[in-house]
């Protein structure tokens, strides 16, 4: 059997990558295992849990429901690009800092997907109420937190807590 190979050019966290991949390679596997960006997690591979959420041209997508080749010519952002904490420092994006402050994570496995879901949500809804926050989160499963402190973290991040 001949293995199909295709060329993929995309930008991930601002870095241009040119790779040859099988057309069937999932974007999640490409990010994790080809590029080594293992901050994006995989929880179900059928698009329900949201752990694998990344940004494609600024919008949240489930990387387990996309083939890597579909990212050809696009701009991908993962949790590793959210802050400059990659080098071992503790510099955090304000949203990440709010999660730490409000105990918005426990095992942390779903967290990267939650963060990447929230980034475009907060861009489009800078001052959401609790109901909107919960709706925005409803596509991300978390088994540890009961969501309460995730909601609190989002409110903290957008300053809602201070105004309430």
């Amino acid at each position, binding site marked *: *059997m001949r293995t199909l190979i295709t060329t993929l050019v995309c930008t991930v966290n601002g870095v241009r990558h040119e790779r040859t991949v099988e057309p069937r390679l999932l974007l999640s596997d490409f990010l994790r295992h080809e590029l080594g960006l293992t901050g994006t*997690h995989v929880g179900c*591979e059928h698009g329900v849990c949201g752990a694998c959420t990344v940004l494609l041209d600024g919008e949240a997508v489930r990387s387990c429901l996309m083939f890597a080749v579909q990212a050809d010519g696009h701009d991908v952002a993962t949790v590793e690009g959210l802050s400059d904490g990659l080098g071992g420092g503790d510099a955090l994006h304000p949203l990440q800092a709010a999660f730490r402050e409000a105990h918005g994570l*426990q095992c942390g496995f779903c967290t990267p997907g939650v963060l990447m879901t929230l980034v475009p949500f907060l861009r489009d809804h800078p001052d959401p109420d609790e109901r909107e926050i919960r709706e925005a989160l409803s596509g991300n499963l978390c088994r540890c937190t*009961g969501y309460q402190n995730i*909601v609190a973290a989002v409110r903290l991040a957008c300053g809602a807590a201070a105004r309430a």
Partner: protein
Amino acid sequence: MARQRAPSGIGERVRRNEDARLLTGRALFVDDVRLDGLLHVAFLRSQHAHARLSSVDASAARSRAGVVAVYTAVDLGDYWRPGPLLVPPPPIPGLVFNSCTQVPLAKDKLRHVGEPIAMVVAESRYLAEDALDDIVVEAEPLPAAVELEAALGPGAPRVHDQLPSNLAAHVVQRKGDWAAAKARAHAVIKRRFRYDRGASAAIENRAVVAHWDSRAEELTVWDTTQAPIPIRNGLAQLLGLLESQVRVVAPFVGGGFGPKIMMFYPEEVLVPWAAMRLGRPVKWTEDRQENFFATTQERGQIHDAELAVTKEGKILGVKDVFLHDTGAYDPYGLTVPINSQCTLLGPYDIPSYESEFTAVFTNKTIVTPVRGAGRQHGVFVIERLLDFAAKELGIDRVEIRRTNLLRPDQFPFNNEILFQDSAPLTYDSGDYAPALDQALEVIDYKRFVREEQPRLKAAGRHVGIGVVCYVEGTGIGPYEGARVTIEPSGRVRLATGVGTQGQGHFTVFAQIVAEVLGVDVTDVHVITGDTREFHWGTGTFASRGAVVAGSACHAAAARVREKILDLASRELKATPADLVLDGGRVHVRGDPKAGIALGALALKANPLRGAVRPGSEPGLEATAYFGPDRGSTANGVHAMLVEVDAETAQVEIKRYVVVHDCGRVINPMIVEGQIQGGVAHGIGNAFYEQLVYDEEGQLLNASFMDYLLPTATDVPNIETTHRETRSPLNPVGAKGVGEAGAIPTGPLFAQAVEDALAGSGLEICEIPLSPNRLFELMNA
């Protein structure tokens, strides 16, 4: 701006040390491990719940490009053997236990859907999965033992041919004289209760990576286990290696909830073996569908229970006869049904108790503890019986509870039966009535019942209130250990054996050590779950991390403190009693300038010249262990307001109140998080989650599309109040809390929904209740 000193010690809301790594994607999970030459595994699994396996032909798979090896049971040779009995049953007189443990690959029989048959090792996971289609399996399907009562009936298909029936265990425990209690009771309430299975559903599936370094002759295994040390010890034995040649690392683990402490899962045995045999590192990561079939599950039980009460509602005795579904194998012994048996007694003074259970093999996934570990069933039975008794006697359901609560002067209270850890079920301490009062006050029970509910009812709304109590045995032995080292930098290294799955160990243990040593919590670097760093211990289960490992951390830190005081008293020419540890320094009381930094002291304790005094040890380091004689007993009260849509049976939780007592709270923020997550899990169990098996033993909802986990729009905010009745059994005074939130949610849901529909005659004796099931019950 001056740096504000962060809160550090026990009892403070310290933010977590581990969060920066997790939030930035730097934390290592098992599937993140990347190694040169890594091979990937896929398993061929049984499609049948029960079948006679006649042949497995893997020849086509072996010749597929990219496939390195395919193994069937035959290929394992002597390595094929049933797994160990992880938890031997307690010494209960008359106990019957038939041990049938899981096998690495099915040999002659398939006993549940998802049981592994063959293992493909290939250059990529994609290729390994391709090759699964090449394997030809011949199997003759057999009728399956699925439903619990039918599985015990005459002529039922037998899961294990060598046994005369599907009886896995039979256990009777008694206290007092039930027959006499029943004879003099004013009323005897009798009901049948059912509790069905759910999935643990950690968002991270299981994974194992193994690397055999043939030069160092060392095997490294990364495993999503809650018990890295027992896994290491067991693997060394299986593979004929020294324990010191095997390193097991449980790095960050994406949720445990119980099933990640099986020993052994077939994959845990096979992946390291293949890595040694092939001389290349090997990885297997479970996918979500496999998780539904192959990761252990919990909680199918059927109870026939009776409660004998006086006219005033005083409990005279309880009799409970139940069936417990143990699935296809029973490697975890009787932990789950014994927890059910013990937890039924709750916070109440129950003078007589007769409890008999039969564990039953079925052609379903293996049952081992899942957050709560059988405690749910016991709480469900006693709480529901009290509700029905209150109704029959015309007593308020809160009052019937209050009447029977144990008083503070009754502790330690011996329940006269044995707990899962083989120790007598003795409650160490507790103060139950104030917890109940506090929950009632927070939810404003009296006003709701007197004023609010009638008003809502008049407006055509069905809003109900529920209040339930529970106790939870936590923090059992045998022991854990910890090593504390002060480094020359002044930072403190703390290594302990328990693995971590999100409970905040990097912070909670650091807080304990920080308090003892007077250092900042961020200066305590915690290492867990790596047998190279610490290789004595058991694991993370039974809500025991903070209690048992936390106490070991405390003991190790206390020994280091002694060493600090000893050396510093000579350096500073002061008596130890006059020394103060604070801010990472030790100084003479009243004279902070006359002091020395702990890092500098650590250097002095490890000199390059001169002499370490006879009888002393170099460095500022100590290892200590802690093993409690028995577990400590946490307790709590949950209260809830729900509104039921009488037409659609949709239930909306309006308020959820938790008053809990886990002894001394080390970090209230983390404890609240544990409670909130537990309650969410409990809400899922009570109303959304059910593993639905058909009569052939096929799981019908094996995906997150069909199996509903609660989402952010389903779980309300939980209002938590802490109470602290310290445990006398450990130096910290802590009791466990990891499972607490999930335990009483079922009966709470049932009571509140019934109350919302009061007058309809609805009685809820089963969990889970989906909207569909509730609709059926409402219209029955």
